[in-house]
């Protein structure tokens, strides 16, 4: 059964792809909608059934589809594993995925390549589910790469504009840089454990065979993979550009699911990271830096989708703080709640963009509160959730992470996290106020927004409001059900409830502060930010990281390539060969000049030869 969860989306992608290519002109929207939206729905039902089985106390479900490779000790099967962690992941991926598919049916309905879109979208679902349900690191890597491919295809979906393809290339290439680390890590893991099997279970059982330095290296390289996929410093630059894709893509891939794969991966390898807490601290630091960095940039952006993209990167930073410090359940819990409110925010943004005829600049929006009432209310809920205002979902998950940082005495990381929380509230309410409250900027009639785009918002808003209660901890009167169910090897620190209330209270205060600041600055009148100070200029140019990459990597590569083409190949390698050719020709010319058929020359040669021989003989005899 669990293999069907993965296989069905792949099959439907294949089916839709073939049907689409067989006649690209023909409109078959009903067929594509049925297959495209139906398949994730079926996967969702199957995932929930698997989840129910585990809830009733079933052990981890394993299922082997077929053998993949069997060479030497390298015995890899296409096999799936539904344990508690992966079941939680697939459950929310398929459920939210289905909602976004329904939304996409409305968002994309006028697009000529509707069928292609759903083929790609289902390809993504299959790949993501493969990544999560994989029973061994190799299959996980296959899924990992395939989500990168689907992301590439979907970012470049509007391929007539070359800029979108540049964005798609950037995403794929930076992800592949991460994958470069990932594949080295799993190769090293395999080589170090050769002969002990290579499923997650057997790796966990034999992890003690690997020495500490090697574990640290493997852990670091795995995290390089996560940096690429989950857009952390320094491999994050692709994520903002990835917003070139259609908005449902941003919601599903670049907010709710694919980008959280890195967090999932660290949690999946929790048995490994548990052995190397110093690498964990490094992960947490990268996460904290990315969280703050992205929040700062987000506060100065004006494109609605890019703000949300930076916000995603910032929230992913929180998740890495959690998993880095060993609070795996809290990290996954934030992945879970974040999926609801971030998907909702993107989908709401998509509705706004459609209504405003593809306007994305928040300074050119305003006053949509009345016209898009449902969108406004749901987005307001999501904004409260992401800003960490109780009782909405984000408060509990973010609070758990900050408490973990505080309790493990990483006060600096905790401080950065709290500061970021305030910034989050600030830039999110800035967006909300500018779009819905500020005075309208244009008098165009709004484009209608179909129901299939608004109803999923309502469901997600309910989720954003209530999902937090699943993970309510003791201090707030709950039983940490989410964490208990996951049963991950968390590093736990005990702190008094009073401290927890204090930290929670501080978060709320910071959140309200950010919200108030945003209200004061943007709710009534606002002008677009200008790059008047150096600080603003740096922030608005995103710290010039793109330019840095260009200068450090792309330019030198192109230069080397030209240098090989213009100098090394023709001058050195061919030069050597042509030198031989020239030597050959020159010798031939010389000989043909000597052999000129004139007797007096030949007589001269004879004379020269005889003299030389005579000299030699005389020399030998000792006369000379």
């Amino acid at each position, binding site marked *: 059964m669990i293999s069907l969860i993965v296989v069905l989306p792949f099959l439907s992608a294949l089916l839709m792809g073939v049907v689409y290519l067989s006649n690209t002109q023909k409109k078959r929207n009903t067929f594509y909608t049925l297959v495209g939206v139906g398949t994730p729905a079926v996967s969702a039902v199957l995932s929930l059934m698997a989840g129910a089985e585990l809830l009733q106390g079933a052990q981890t479900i394993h299922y082997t589809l077929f053998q993949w490779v*069997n060479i030497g000790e390298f015995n890899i099967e296409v096999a799936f594993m539904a344990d508690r962690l992966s079941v939680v992941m697939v459950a929310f991926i398929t459920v939210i995925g289905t909602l976004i598919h329904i939304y996409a049916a409305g968002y994309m309905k006028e697009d000529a390549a509707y069928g292609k879109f759903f083929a790609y979208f289902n390809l993504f679902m299959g790949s993501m589910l493969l990544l999560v349900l994989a029973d061994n690191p190799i299959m996980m890597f296959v899924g990992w790469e395939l989500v990168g491919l689907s992301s590439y295809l979907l970012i470049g979906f509007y*391929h007539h504009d070359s800029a979108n393809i540049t964005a798609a290339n950037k995403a794929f290439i930076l992800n592949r840089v991460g994958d470069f680390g990932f594949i080295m890590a799993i190769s090293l893991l395999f080589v170090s454990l050769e002969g002990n099997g290579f499923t997650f279970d057997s790796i966990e059982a034999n992890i003690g065979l690997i020495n500490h330095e090697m574990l640290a290296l493997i852990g670091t390289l795995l995290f390089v993979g996560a940096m690429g996929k989950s857009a952390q410093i320094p491999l994050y630059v692709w994520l903002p550009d990835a917003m070139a894709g259609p908005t449902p893509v941003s919601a599903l891939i670049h907010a709710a699911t694919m980008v959280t794969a890195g967090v999932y991966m660290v949690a999946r390898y929790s048995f490994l990271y548990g052995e190397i807490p110093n690498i964990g601290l490094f992960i947490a630091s990268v996460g904290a830096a990315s969280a703050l960095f992205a929040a700062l940039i987000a506060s100065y952006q004006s494109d609605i989708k890019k703000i949300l993209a930076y916000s995603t990167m910032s929230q992913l930073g929180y998740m890495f703080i959690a998993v880095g410090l060993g609070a795996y359940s809290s990290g996954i819990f934030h992945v879970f709640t974040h999926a609801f409110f971030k998907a909702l925010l993107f989908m709401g943004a998509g509705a706004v963009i459609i209504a405003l005829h593809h306007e994305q600049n928040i300074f050119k929006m305003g006053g949509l509160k009345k016209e898009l009432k449902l969108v406004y209310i749901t987005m307001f809920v999501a904004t409260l959730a992401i800003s960490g205002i109780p009782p909405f979902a984000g408060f509990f998950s973010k609070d758990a992470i900050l408490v973990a940082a505080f309790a493990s005495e990483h006060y600096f990381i905790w401080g950065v996290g709290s500061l970021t929380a305030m910034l989050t509230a600030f830039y999110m309410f800035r967006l909300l106020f500018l779009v819905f409250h500020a005075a309208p900027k244009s008098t165009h009639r709004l484009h209608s927004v179909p129901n299939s785009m608004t109803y999923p918002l309502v469901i997600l808003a309910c989720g954003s409001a209530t999902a937090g209660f699943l993970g309510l901890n003791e201090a707030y009167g709950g039983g940490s059900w989410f964490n208990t169910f996951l049963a991950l090897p968390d590093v736990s620190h005990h702190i008094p409830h009073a401290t927890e209330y204090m930290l929670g209270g501080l978060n709320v205060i910071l959140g309200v502060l950010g919200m108030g600041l945003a209200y004061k600055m943007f709710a009534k009148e606002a002008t677009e930010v200008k790059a008047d100070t150096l600080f603003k200029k740096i922030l608005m140019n995103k710290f010039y990281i793109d330019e840095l990459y260009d200068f450090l990597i792309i330019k030198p590569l192109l230069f080397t390539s030209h240098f090989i083409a213009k100098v090394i190949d023709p001058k050195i390698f061919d030069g050597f060969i042509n030198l031989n050719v020239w030597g050959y020709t020159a010798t031939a010319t010389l000989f043909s000049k000597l052999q000129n058929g004139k007797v007096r020359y030949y007589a001269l040669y004879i004379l020269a030869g005889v003299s030389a021989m005579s000299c030699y003989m005389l020399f030998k005899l000792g006369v000379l």
Partner: protein
Amino acid sequence: MMQHILTFIIFIPLFTAIVLGIMRASTKSLKIGAMFSSVITLFLVAVVAYNFNPDIGMQFTKNLPWIQNAGISYIIGVDYLSLVILLLIGLLMPPLYIYMYHEERKGYWYNMMLLQTGVTGAVLSLDLVLFYLFWETMLLPIFVMIGKYGNGMHQYNSMKILLMTILGSMSMLFSILYIGYIYFETTGMWSFALSDLAIIAFEPKTSIWLAAGFLLAFAIKIPLVGFHTWMAPAYGSAPTPAVVILSAIMAKLGIYGIWRFGYGLFESTLSYYAPTIIVLALIGLIYYAIRAITENNLRKMFAYSSGSHLSLIALGLFLTNIYAWSGSLYFIATHALASAGMFLMIGLTYKRFNTVHISDLGGIASKAPIFTFFFAFFALSIAGLPGTGGFVAELLIIIGAFKADFWIGVLTATTMLSAMMYIFWMLQRTLFGAANKECQYSDLTLREITILLPLVVLLLVTGIVPSLFIPLFEPQLTTTLQDVLFVIGGLK
């Protein structure tokens, strides 16, 4: 029948060509004849593969004395290694002939048939002189096809490939003759059969020179860095069917030669050369890829791409462990499929737009979606995307490299990055962007899809279910490797 089946596979194309030539056949009957011969050979190859026993070594062998005074015999046979290449030749010829459907120049067809006999013979020969004969035979049609039917500076380029390849062949011939002489010195008889010569224990110093003779020929054929300047011009000038054979089959024969004759005759000497070749291969992997980034001619870009991947295959071979070896052999097959597909797509691009220069292309995706799919599919399978066979092969080689040495592993893993550097930018400029060119954007026809679809299916099957193919070669590959390691280890 069964004991002559390999002989039939080798000579049916040549025989067809001779008969048609004597009959002065019309172009139409020439086309039918060539197609017919390729289908029959494919069928016979399938029979061989079906009856192939993966647990024993050489099979379907045939040993006939030929020039007895000099100990030269006609010995052919097939084992796990030659079977892979034999299957590729069998599978690729019919699609190539379908591709050449509109080709009216008779010489083209004759040369292709001669070429098929040449490559098949080279891969099945187990006598060194016989091997040399076929090795030279396959060069001739390539020389003619580039020189006569090529484009650009085709005559200069065909001369260049001829001279550079012959330089290698000559050194190999010298080694072959000298080995035969040593055999005569030790046993008092002449023989050039691989199985006889394999038992000679060479003096280390002699062995180093003899191996060098072979390695030079194979290094030029692959080509390793430094021996490569014939490659891009030849690929750039050659007509598409010749490029496909060059990249999919002939370059692999360089690897095959080292595998069969290098490891068959001088295992321990190869371990003396291994560090040098590993370094050259690692340089090649990265060097060619970087060179490809700014290449504007698609044919040349994928010539460099081919060089980069063949360096990887050579690397895997010299790492001598089970993962690297399996990866290399698997890569021989999957890279042949992917590069054949890619060069066919480039040929189809040329047919449509009359150019293979990236700067003259663009915007194909919005006009010709099926064309775009196939083009992108082959390009991505060259980049080693999971789900295609190349990924399995590259993964195995990377694992083998890490097993050998950490830093070799790191450098080998750059293959994840190297192909990507040129492929994605190329796709962007070739397929995407605005369709503002004035040429005719026509999508693939049914005939063209028929050529390409089998390659796509095979790449997917080799990528998704490699376990269908691995048992064909794994047992004997393991045995051979153990023998090689035993000899190398025994000497240390």
